[in-house]
């Protein structure tokens, strides 16, 4: 269960999910058994890189660390969290990059990577966000 949720094989970051041959569910993250029907017929599937914001909140206080990445009250800054609907196939929970005051339901977003130390993490950012990949 510790596999990275990101794939860089095509040069740019993609989210790694799964598609279940038994019940056709698209799941995230990828796991051996389907979370919907428990079948083992789950194949690796790269998820769409763009989507729309379905709901969101803002994490205003520092989450307990661990499990949160190494952080202190001095280095912590608030961040958005939301569910991003990807092409009508699945809604993925994600950190949101950008100013929380500008978020709205239905906002268009793209996948980016986030450096919290250690393995790269994923986030979604507004389409016009620059300097991100």
């Amino acid at each position, binding site marked *: 269960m*510790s596999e990275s949720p990101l794939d860089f094989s095509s040069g740019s970051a993609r989210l790694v999910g799964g598609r279940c041959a038994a019940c056709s*569910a698209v799941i995230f993250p990828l796991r051996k058994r389907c979370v919907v029907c428990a079948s083992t017929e789950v194949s690796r599937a790269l998820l769409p890189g763009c989507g729309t914001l379905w709901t969101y909140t*803002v994490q*205003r206080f520092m989450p307990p660390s661990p499990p*949160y990445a190494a952080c202190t009250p001095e280095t912590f800054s608030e961040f958005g*969290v939301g569910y991003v609907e990807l092409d009508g196939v*699945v809604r993925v929970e994600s*950190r949101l990059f950008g100013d929380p005051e500008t978020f709205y339901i239905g906002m268009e977003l793209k996948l980016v990577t986030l450096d919290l130390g250690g*393995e790269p993490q994923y986030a979604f950012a507004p389409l016009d966000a620059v300097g991100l990949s």
Partner: protein
Amino acid sequence: MTCPPIAIVGIGLHPFGRHAGVTGLEMGAHAVRFALRDAGLRWSDVQFAAGGSSSSGNADTMVADLGATGLPFLNVHNGCATGGSALVSVYNALTSGACDVGLVVGFDKHPRGAFTERPEDWSLPGWYGTAGLMVTTQFFGMKIRRYMHDHGIDPPLLAKVANKAFRNAEKNENAWRRQALSEEEILNARMVSDPLTQYMLCSPGEGGAALVLCRGEYLSRLPHARPIYLRSAVLRTRQPQSFDVYSPALGIELSPSPSVAAARAAFERAGVGPSEIDIAQVQDTESGAELIHLAECGLCEDGEQTELYRRGATEIGGDLPVNTDGGCIANGEPIGASGLRQIYETVLQLRGDAGDRQVPNKPITGFTHVYGAPGVSACVVLAR
């Protein structure tokens, strides 16, 4: 399905709040002693017990304080449904005829601040915690945000819910936060998980609650008992693709919350419909949860909440009083104790013993509901 009548004959509570120097187990044992005294029974009369906490120890070790009578005592560790699950266990033992007298206890003592959980303990990958997603308040913020969007609810209603909680708690000597706050103060307080402010969210806390139950036939041995009948007690977990706590992904077509299934089954088994309920205690982890859970449990329609609260329907003197003791918002959340606190309050109200916060017109039926991570709910129907 016809079940033999099961009666709650004793209730006990350790005040909620912060109690330096008192352990969670001691609070649980305190509640047990009060429940036994209320029932007119001794610990040695109890034939089966179940109970637990989320993070404050094993319930069965409280025999050190109550007496090692050798009774079967089941430890329950089931998140926010710990109390409800323990109650279901005792209820089933009583209806099956395995015992005549049973006891349920729940307690907890959490440190300040958000709950700390390990992703691996929740069937989740480690990166979920590292990324900062292992925080329950995020779920509640996101769920109510979408619900408000879909059903036309505005932020002032969230403040109204919390305002009611603190006003009810003013009249409850066992509550933690007993100071009334204006809707403006609540709305303008520090934002914690948008759109939820500090005073809209409950805080992890401390407390204990216990119930003594018996089979109907046993009541003849308790001439002073004022029984309140447990008409049903139902526990349910989540379905695939539902919108629940700690969900890395959701389906496009969402399954209903486990609260929907638990409430439906509880009403069906009780033979009582939601419209016949006189008083309700629903999980108010935060203001929005109270609004959503009323609809999920069938006590109102989606979107009807604004009008319901505007006309005071959920007030102590309203058509459907909700969270009459101040709920989790004013009592705090000692996870193991909250579900049983709701039943304690409902029994008090149905007996007519709730003092300054007594619901008028002699309520006959009550309903309680808990919900928690990772998608578990327990519902109970009670009647005089």
